[in-house]
C-alpha cells in the first residue's frame, strides 16, 4: 500500500528537482505522444529542444528566443511577487493589452514627429496603462473585498474589446484603406523599439526583462518589502503581527505586475509586432503564469523557465514545419509541462511511503 504523508518541512531537494523531473517526464510522455502520431519521437524532441539552439539556422532562432521569452519573463516576474504573497493577478493579458494601447497611443499621437523623447514617453505610458488596469482589481479588493482572481480575469475580456475598438476606430491607420489595425510603428523611427544591435534580437523589452529579474532578486532578498511579501505568503497571521499592511501590499503587488505587463505590451507593440491590431495579444499574459510557476516564483528560475517556454514555442513551430506535427500536439506538449510540474510538486510537500504488509 502506498501512503502519502506530509513532510514536516518542504523538501529543499525536491523543490529544485521538480522542474527538471517535470521537463524529463514531459519529454518522455511527449515522445510517446509523437510516436503515437507516427513520428520519430527522438527526432521530434531533438527538433524542439536542439534545433533552435544549435541547429543549422540557430543564428536566426537564438535571437528569436529572446524576442519570444522577454515578454514572458517580464510579466512572470511581476506576477511572481504577487503570487508569493498570495495575491493572484490572473489578468496580466489584459494589462498587457492596455499597456500596448496606451503606449502605442502616445507614440501614434506624436506621429510623424521625430524626437528622442517619443519612445521614453511611450514606455512610461505603457507602464502606466498596465498599472492603471491592474489598479481596478486592486482597489476593488482593498475597498470592497472582491476577489482579485475573478476581477482581473474578467478585465482581460474587457481589454480585448477595447483592443478591437481601438484597432477599428481611434488608432486605425488613416492610410489603411479602411482595414483595421494601426500604423506600423516599425516604420516610425522615433516610436520603433528596434533591435539595439541588429541580428541579436536584443530590444528594449529584453533589456527590461533582465533588469526586472535583477530588481526582483534584490527586492526579495535584500529589501524589507520583499521580506514582507514572502512573510505574507508563508504566514499571513505572523505578517499581520509583524506590521505588514495587507492593503498596501495588494496595491503594490498588483500595481507592479500590471506595470510590468503593460511594459511588455508596449515593447511588443512597438517592436516585434509593430502595430495595434485586433489579434495583437497571443496569450503571453496567460503563458506567463505557467512560466512563473515553472520558475518556482524565483527570479532566476523564471528567467530559465521563460527561456524554456520560448524554446518549446519556437522548436514546436520548427517541428510543425519540418516534421508535420500538428499544432495541437505541440500545445498538448506544452500543457504537459505544467501538468507534470504540479503533479511532481506533491513531492516537495509530501513523501510517498511504501507501507509493507506488516502494517496490515
Amino acid at each position: 500500500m502506498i501512503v502519502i504523508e506530509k513532510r514536516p518541512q518542504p523538501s529543499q531537494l525536491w523543490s529544485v528537482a521538480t522542474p527538471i523531473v517535470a521537463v524529463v517526464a514531459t519529454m518522455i510522455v511527449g515522445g510517446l505522444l509523437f510516436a503515437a502520431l507516427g513520428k520519430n519521437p527522438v527526432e521530434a524532441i531533438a527538433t524542439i529542444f536542439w534545433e533552435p539552439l544549435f541547429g543549422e539556422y540557430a543564428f536566426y532562432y537564438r535571437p528569436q528566443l529572446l524576442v519570444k521569452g522577454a515578454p514572458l519573463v517580464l510579466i512572470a516576474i511581476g506576477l511572481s511577487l504577487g503570487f508569493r504573497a498570495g495575491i493572484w493577478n490572473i489578468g496580466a493579458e489584459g494589462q498587457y493589452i492596455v499597456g500596448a494601447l496606451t503606449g502605442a497611443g502616445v507614440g501614434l499621437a506624436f506621429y510623424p514627429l521625430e524626437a528622442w523623447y517619443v519612445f521614453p514617453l511611450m514606455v512610461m505610458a505603457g507602464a502606466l496603462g498596465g498599472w492603471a488596469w491592474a489598479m481596478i482589481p486592486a482597489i476593488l479588493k482593498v475597498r470592497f473585498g472582491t476577489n482579485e482572481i475573478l476581477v482581473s480575469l474578467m478585465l482581460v475580456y474587457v481589454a480585448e474589446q477595447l483592443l478591437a475598438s481601438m484597432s477599428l476606430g481611434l488608432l486605425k491607420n488613416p492610410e489603411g484603406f479602411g482595414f483595421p489595425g494601426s500604423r506600423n510603428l516599425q516604420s516610425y523611427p522615433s516610436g520603433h523599439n528596434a533591435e539595439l544591435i541588429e541580428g541579436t534580437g536584443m530590444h528594449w523589452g529584453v533589456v527590461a526583462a533582465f533588469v526586472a529579474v535583477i530588481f526582483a532578486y534584490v527586492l526579495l532578498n535584500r529589501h524589507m518589502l520583499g521580506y514582507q511579501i514572502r512573510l505574507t505568503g508563508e504566514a499571513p497571521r505572523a505578517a499581520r503581527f509583524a506590521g505588514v499592511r495587507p492593503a498596501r501590499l495588494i496595491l503594490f503587488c498588483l500595481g507592479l505586475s500590471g506595470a510590468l505587463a503593460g511594459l511588455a505590451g508596449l515593447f511588443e507593440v512597438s517592436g516585434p509586432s509593430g502595430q495595434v491590431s485586433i489579434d495583437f495579444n497571443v496569450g503571453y499574459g496567460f503563458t506567463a503564469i505557467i512560466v512563473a510557476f515553472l520558475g518556482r516564483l524565483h527570479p532566476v528560475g523564471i528567467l530559465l523557465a521563460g527561456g524554456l517556454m520560448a524554446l518549446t514555442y519556437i522548436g514546436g513551430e520548427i517541428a510543425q514545419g519540418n516534421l508535420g506535427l500538428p499544432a495541437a500536439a505541440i500545445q498538448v506538449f506544452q500543457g504537459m509541462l505544467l501538468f507534470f510540474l504540479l503533479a511532481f510538486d506533491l513531492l516537495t510537500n509530501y513523501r510517498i511511503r511504501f507501507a509493507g504488509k506488516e502494517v496490515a
Partner: protein
Amino acid sequence: MKFTKLLATAALGLGLATAAVAQDKTKVGFVYVGPVGDGGWTYEHNEGRLAVEEHFGDKVETVFVESVPEGPDAERVMTQMALGGADLIFTTSFGYMDPTINVAKKFPDVKFEHATGYKRADNVSTYSARFYEGRAVQGLIAGHMTESNIVGYIGSYPIPEVIRGINSAFIHARKVNPDVQFKIVWAYTWFDPAKEADAANVLIEQGADVILQHTDSTAPQAAAQAAGDVITFGQASDMAEYAPKPRVSSIIDNWAPYYIDRVQAVMDGTWESQDVWHGIGEGMVGIGEITDAVPADVKQAALDLKDSIASGEYHPFTGPIKKQDGSDWLAEGETADDGTLAGMNFYVEGIEGDIPQ
C-alpha cells in the same frame, strides 16, 4: 544591416546549395491561421495544398504550419520556411500582411502570395476571391426562405471583406423580400466554435430563422440543427455533413486551381507579382449544392443568379444603391468599382445598426 546581410547570405548560400536539387523539387510553404481541421477557411487552403501535391507529385514538396497567430509569430514561421528553402510561400490570412512584407524584404528570391491583403512587392502577390458573389446567391435564398423575416448574420471582424458580404447578401435578400431584416453579431474571431455557437444561439433567440456566418467553424450549423427550424449556409467549405438541413447551400473557396497555377509559374520562372481577385466565373468561388429543403423555384432563381454573375452579365453591386445614411452610392445601372469594394466600410441602405468603430 548586418542581420539582413546574414539572412541574405544564408538564403543565397541555400539557393546555391539547393540549386542542383531544386531543379526537380519546388518547395512550397503554407502558413495557416487556424487548424487544418477547422472544416472551413484553413481546411480549404489545405485542400489547395493537397491538390498541389497531387498535381505535381514528386516535383514539389509542401510544408505547412497551422494555427499561427498574426504578428511576430507569423514572421518567424515564414522566415523559418524561407530559411528551410521554400521557393514559394502562401500566407493565408489578412493579418499576415505586414509580416509577409517584412520577410519578403529579407528574402528577395523567395516568392510570397498573401491572401486578402493589399500590400504588394516585387516578390509579393496578393490574391483573394469575390466571396460577395456567393453572398448574393445566399441572400436571395435567405430572403425567400425566412418566415420571421429576420436573418441572423455572424460577422467575424468588421473589415471590408466581411462588410461586403453583409451588403451583398442584404441587397439580394431585400430584392425578393422587402420586409427582411438583418441582425448582425460580431464574434471577433475567425475560428472559435464556442463563441460562434453562442452567437448563433443569440440570433436564433432573437427570432432569426436563417443564419449566415462569416466565421470558419461548423458550430453555428450545429446550433441551428439543435434549434430545429433554422437554415444555414456552409462557409468557406461545403459543410455538407449538415445537409440537407440546416445547411441548404454553401460558399466553397476553391484555391486549388490558383495554387497549382502559381506553383507552375515558379517552376517555369514566369512568376510575377500580381493582384488577383477571382469569383464564381473563374471557379475560385463555388456554390455548394442547393438542397431540397429549398423549393424548386427558389433554387432555380438562385442558380440563374449564379449563372448571370458567373458570365459577367450581372454584378451583385449594381445601382441604384444608397448608403445606410441615405446618401447616393451607385446610380441606376452603375456597378461598383473594385477600389470601393476593396475598402468597403459602410452599410447599404436598410441595414440597421452601426459598424463597430
